């Protein structure tokens, strides 16, 4: 009897220890610099496991999400461009349909208070629904996607690894995509290293000048360290008569939101052309000249833009040089984020 109990206890102990080892191997660590604010996302529904991350990565790169198996998330969100679509003013979806907007870069999503250029999506876990369902993008529905995943042997195995249940559901599909995309964090730029170094010699004089110009003229909306204040602003662009895109107002139905769009982050800006919600500017020089000369005044114009940006040629170059310090090559070339197949 005593022996049996001892064996029993021993067995329980071994089981507990080994399960700890398994859990430890599977847990992802959500890292970010100490000087950053706390993320807004709560993580409560994510397993933070490697398996869920890999499932999300497969889903992200798999055209199975689109109606005709041609478009994946990565079609418009390429890692080398900080997960946006370079060379395309407006992104295109199934059957070559051209969409209404320039795809946003994906990074540091846990700090976003809303998603999309108009903020129509209120939570990271629901973001993927928009491209999946849009007829200009993937032209499918979550319901259709779940049915396809449930008839795929590969995904049955991947879902089982992640959730101990091979059945895909809408919630699990969205959570897996969240588990992947929420880990796409960029915080290893030259700028970050300079800030951590507390203003040491990592920046050239020109980059330091550029940072000062940036802080004086741009940082009220593109707030450090995430380079966005998460708000919506009318930055004085003319209305494109073909798109008739009034931005935030289409979500809120409030006239005070007319022509307002999300302030995008400037991290990795060097690799995310074209710029603006409709991709109208091909390079950063054009963006700066818009703020210098092109502002259209209207009722909802951001008050910060009432007077034109006044920069000398040299200051403009310094600012452009500074913006390049926001490039994070470790992020752009991180193998864990790349094509998994």
């Amino acid at each position, binding site marked *: 009897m005593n022996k049996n109990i001892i064996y029993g206890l021993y067995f329980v102990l071994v089981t507990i220890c080994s399960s700890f080892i398994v859990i430890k191997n599977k847990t992802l660590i959500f890292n970010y610099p100490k000087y950053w604010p706390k993320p807004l996302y709560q993580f409560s529904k994510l397993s933070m496991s490697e398996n869920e991350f890999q499932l999300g990565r497969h889903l992200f790169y798999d055209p199975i999400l689109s109606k005709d198996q041609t478009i994946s998330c990565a079609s418009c969100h390429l890692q080398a461009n900080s997960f946006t679509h370079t060379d395309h003013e407006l992104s295109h979806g199934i059957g070559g349909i051209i969409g209404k907007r320039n795809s946003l870069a994906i990074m540091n999503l846990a700090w976003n208070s809303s998603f999309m250029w108009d903020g129509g999506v209120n939570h990271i876990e629901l973001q993927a629904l928009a491209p999946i369902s849009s007829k200009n993008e993937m032209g499918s529905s979550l*319901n259709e996607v779940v049915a396809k995943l449930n008839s795929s042997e590969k995904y049955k195995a991947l879902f089982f690894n992640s959730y101990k249940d091979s059945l895909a559901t809408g919630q699990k599909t969205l959570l897996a995509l969240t588990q992947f995309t929420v880990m796409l964090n960029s915080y290893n730029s030259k700028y970050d290293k300079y800030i951590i170094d507390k203003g040491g010699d990592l920046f050239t004089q020109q980059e330091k000048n550029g940072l000062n110009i940036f802080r004086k003229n741009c940082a009220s909306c593109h707030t450090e360290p995430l380079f966005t204040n998460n708000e919506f602003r009318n930055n004085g662009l003319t209305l494109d008569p073909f798109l008739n895109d009034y931005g935030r107002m289409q979500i809120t139905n409030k006239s005070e939101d007319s022509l307002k769009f999300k302030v995008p982050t400037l991290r990795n800006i060097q690799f995310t052309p074209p710029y603006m919600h409709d991709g109208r500017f091909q390079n950063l020089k054009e963006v700066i000249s818009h703020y210098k000369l092109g502002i259209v005044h209207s009722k909802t114009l951001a008050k910060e833009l009432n007077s034109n940006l006044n920069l000398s040629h040299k200051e403009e170059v310094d600012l452009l040089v500074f913006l390049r310090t926001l490039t994070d090559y470790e992020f752009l070339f991180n193998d864990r984020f790349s094509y998994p197949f």
Partner: protein
Amino acid sequence: MAYLFKKVNYFMKYNFIPILISVLLGFTLISFSSSTLEIIITPRFNNKSILETDWYVTPTKDSIQFTKIKFYLTNFKLISNNGEIKVLENSSYLIDIFKPETLKFSLKLPHFNNNDKLYFELGVNNRMNTTGAHSGALDPSNGMYWSWQSGYINFKIEGVSPSCMTRKNKFQFHIGGYQNPHNTLRNFTINLNKQNLELNLNLEKFFEFTKLSNENQVLIPGSNADQLATVFYNAFSVF
């Protein structure tokens, strides 16, 4: 150590049976002190059952046929006479008029007395609309979720009518919106005095103020959706 095992052994031999009995008794008591409340939904149009194959005439004299009638009943709470509130976790139900199995469900309630009240919501509340992807009845793959703008569709009523000068004569009402001033959530508080609760939907009332030739598509949150949410709510009666 050996002493401890001896103790365990002794304990097993002499105290096991009375403990087992009291544990079993405890479980029985717990199961007796909770009760089941059956919710039965009865959809009617002019006092007739609603079938996909039948035609109906609205109070405003439109002939109609239905293809889809779905709505959410969520967030059930038991409110005791003394003001104590017990929330029933995960109590979200998607009712589909054309799926009879969804027209009847039972709630496991803690023990309740006469004059206790049951609170529940018609639609999905603000909290569930702002906390990401949910499972079960609230899984966004159920087709009751908007994608271009976050938010649940609290109810869908779709069908055809020759009065609708639309593609395939369709009418479509997708009603939702969780933000003020056009929050489309409505709620019921009902006295509990029996073991079941009958929720009757008199759907003709939804069309009392609507002439389908004028208004046949409401697919976004806003003041129209808000008004129709009230009209739909008023089409329910509870017994």
